[in-house]
């Protein structure tokens, strides 16, 4: 039993942290959000290019594809260091899309995309959800019909993060509506600028935006079908495993907690230090314990990975605990900071310049996104505890 990372891993983290600090210049961190998901501005795109030049993209990719060939735990370490700095996370190209192409893509798609992904030249959007297909993704309806040597796509996607600035669209469409619903789905890659694509913004509570995307007779060449027709749903499920250990970085919550703790250490209410208030101290003790448990869950996920065991249930546990503690942390911070905690950034007397009011809104999403916590609990109940399926 050993709860410490190896010397090699710690050295990697130290190097990565220093490199991130050096390149995380003005404008890279989004101070208006906890959002680390958007590589949309010139500063953030520049940062990702720098990460590419430093060899930090594809650290766990096989050497034959231009990666460093390191074990998957190094993705975790990098994700933690990015989160600790408040920098944008490594994009979907390295995780979901690159990995799916390596496993199932044609030689053409690998040649076309993998080197450019490693150079941070492409931003992707992922089109899974639709108005009638959320948690029940297999019921998606966006239709792809055969048209000469290619496909014609018609329908609507919803909650496509990044669609307003992405270059390529990684999209799931229905190619067969006659059989079981999860067997008629196919994955495509298409340029976001393809004729017939319209993107409508949907502003979100965290100060960011997501998008509705409408596809009207969008033509896709056969060469941009990923893997086999009709296998898309299985590829999507498999791809979830590629990033389970990087989606909910512990360091992000520790960073938020650090701002809160710093505030509590220094500030006074009615002339009395917050840090001497027994109610505050008790709440801090509980939060710091919940955070340490969150760290334990993140270690459980990478430990399963290290041992070559399935991490599905561990990852579901990590996601539920992380997202629910984040909400508790946000609530507790607002309550303990006291009157005026609701003041937003830039207002006079806003505690921590509105940081806690901002976090409180950001914390709404994680229990919903990336597989709602109800879905995660189903996974834990059925795969972990062996409880029966409904019906």
């Amino acid at each position, binding site marked *: *039993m050993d709860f410490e990372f190896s010397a090699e891993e710690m050295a990697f983290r130290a190097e990565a942290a220093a490199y991130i600090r050096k390149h995380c210049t003005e404008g890279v961190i989004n101070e208006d959000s906890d959002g680390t998901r958007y590589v949309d501005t010139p500063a953030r795109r520049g940062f990702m290019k720098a990460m590419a030049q430093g060899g930090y993209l594809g650290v766990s990719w096989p050497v034959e594809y231009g990666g460093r060939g390191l074990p998957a735990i190094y993705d975790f370490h990098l994700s933690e260091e990015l989160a600790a700095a408040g920098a944008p996370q490594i994009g979907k190209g390295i995780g979901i899309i690159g990995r799916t192409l390596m496993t199932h893509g044609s030689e053409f798609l690998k040649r076309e995309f993998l080197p450019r992904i490693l150079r941070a030249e492409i931003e992707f959007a992922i089109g899974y959800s639709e108005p009638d297909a959320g948690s029940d993704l297999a019921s998606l309806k966006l239709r792809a019909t055969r048209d000469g040597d290619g496909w014609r796509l018609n329908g609507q996607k919803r909650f496509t993060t990044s669609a307003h600035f992405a270059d390529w669209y990684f999209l799931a469409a229905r190619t067969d509506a006659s059989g079981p619903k999860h067997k008629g789905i196919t994955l495509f890659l298409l340029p976001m600028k393809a004729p017939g694509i319209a993107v409508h913004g949907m502003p979100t509570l965290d100060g960011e935006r997501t998008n509705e995307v409408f596809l009207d007779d969008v033509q896709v060449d056969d060469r941009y079908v990923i893997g086999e027709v009709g296998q898309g749903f299985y590829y999507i499920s498999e791809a979830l495993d590629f990033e389970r250990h990087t989606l909910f970085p512990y360091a992000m919550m520790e960073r938020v907690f650090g701002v809160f703790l710093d505030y509590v250490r220094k500030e006074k209410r009615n002339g009395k230090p917050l840090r001497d208030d027994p109610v505050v101290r008790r709440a801090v003790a*509980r939060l710091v*314990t919940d955070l340490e448990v969150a760290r334990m869950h993140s270690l459980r996920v990478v*430990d399963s990975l290290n041992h070559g065991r399935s991490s599905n249930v561990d990852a579901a546990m990590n996601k539920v605990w992380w997202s629910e503690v984040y909400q508790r942390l946000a609530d507790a911070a607002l309550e303990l900071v006291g009157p005026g905690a609701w003041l937003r950034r830039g207002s006079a007397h806003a505690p921590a310049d509105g940081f806690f009011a901002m976090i409180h809104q950001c914390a709404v999403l994680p229990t919903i996104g990336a597989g709602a916590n*109800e879905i995660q609990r189903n996974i834990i109940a059925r795969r972990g505890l062996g409880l029966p399926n409904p*019906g």
Partner: protein
Amino acid sequence: MDLDLTDEQRAMRETLRKMLADLSPPNVVRQMEDDSLGFPPALWKAIADMGLTGLSLPEEYGGLALGTVETAVSYEEFGRVLCPSPHFVSSVLAAGILRHGGSAQQCEAWLPAIARGDSIITVALLEPGGDYDATGIQLQGNPGADGYRLSGSKSCVPFAKAAQRLLVPVRVGAAEHEIDFLLIDPASPGISMRQQFTSARDAQYEICFDNVAVPLSARVGEPKSGWTLWRAVAEDGMIALAAWAVGCADRALEMATTYAKERVQFDRPIGSFQGIAHPLATVAIEVAGARTLVYQAAWAQATRRPAQRLAAMAKLYADAANRHATMVGHQTLGGIGFTVDIDMQLYQRRAKQSQLSWWDAKTLEEQIADSIFDEGEFHGL
């Protein structure tokens, strides 16, 4: 990093699990409820025969010289079957206090006997009206040239009837930490005890001291070092009880899950309803988190890393998880679980009592907060 137990630790767990399945099944746990001794001698002997009574004691005293991770492994198993034994007071607390503060003569007189399981020593900490703080110790020691004179009482002393000696913290000065630990023969003139009846139905006693004379040689450690000694065994104690809570919670979850798979209502197993499945999934998350936190604390303690805050967090969290697991267990079992024939109530009552015992949530939260605010900058957890 590797969160797995070693092969030796796993083998130890299996051996212990087999022995406890034979000697500490639910009917034995039930027989021991409100028993004046509180444990079956055959079970105690089997624990001793495995060497567990001397688990963490050095070999020179006949111990196994194992570390805190092995203690956690053992306590997880004890918790799983609610093993009724004075192991915690004697082999963790008393053995720890004597090792840290005992004179050579005291150690030689008692540690080998504790390691063999021949002697049981309990700790008489609580007093009526006091809590787990140092100021809760108000029994006056009245030290003089010819020794101490005790008048007053201690409460909730576990397994006192079986104990050959009591370790008793007494107040020797007005300042908060002016406390001496005394090693006292319960047969001394002026000592009387009567059983108290607890929620967990374990054997606890009120001990009354009526002008009891205690020689100066009974003191363990330097004068006024009593609270330091108590602090010195706190990490091991918290970690052991936290591991116990993980085992107890895990078994409660197991029983509830089994029932949810078998019990049919509305023509289907109730475990297929999310109203039943999701609370059980939440318990599974909490038990998994608690277990890893407990073993991290045990590993830190065993490898002489700072473990004070981790141990407090481990007991705070594992006890809460255990309390929750047993309550969800009751809810899952429904009406039948409210009858005493069903084992869930054995787990639920002990889960809550253990959460309240030795270091309660309030005490642990204060310690954790002190450790956060007394340090300089926040550099992670």
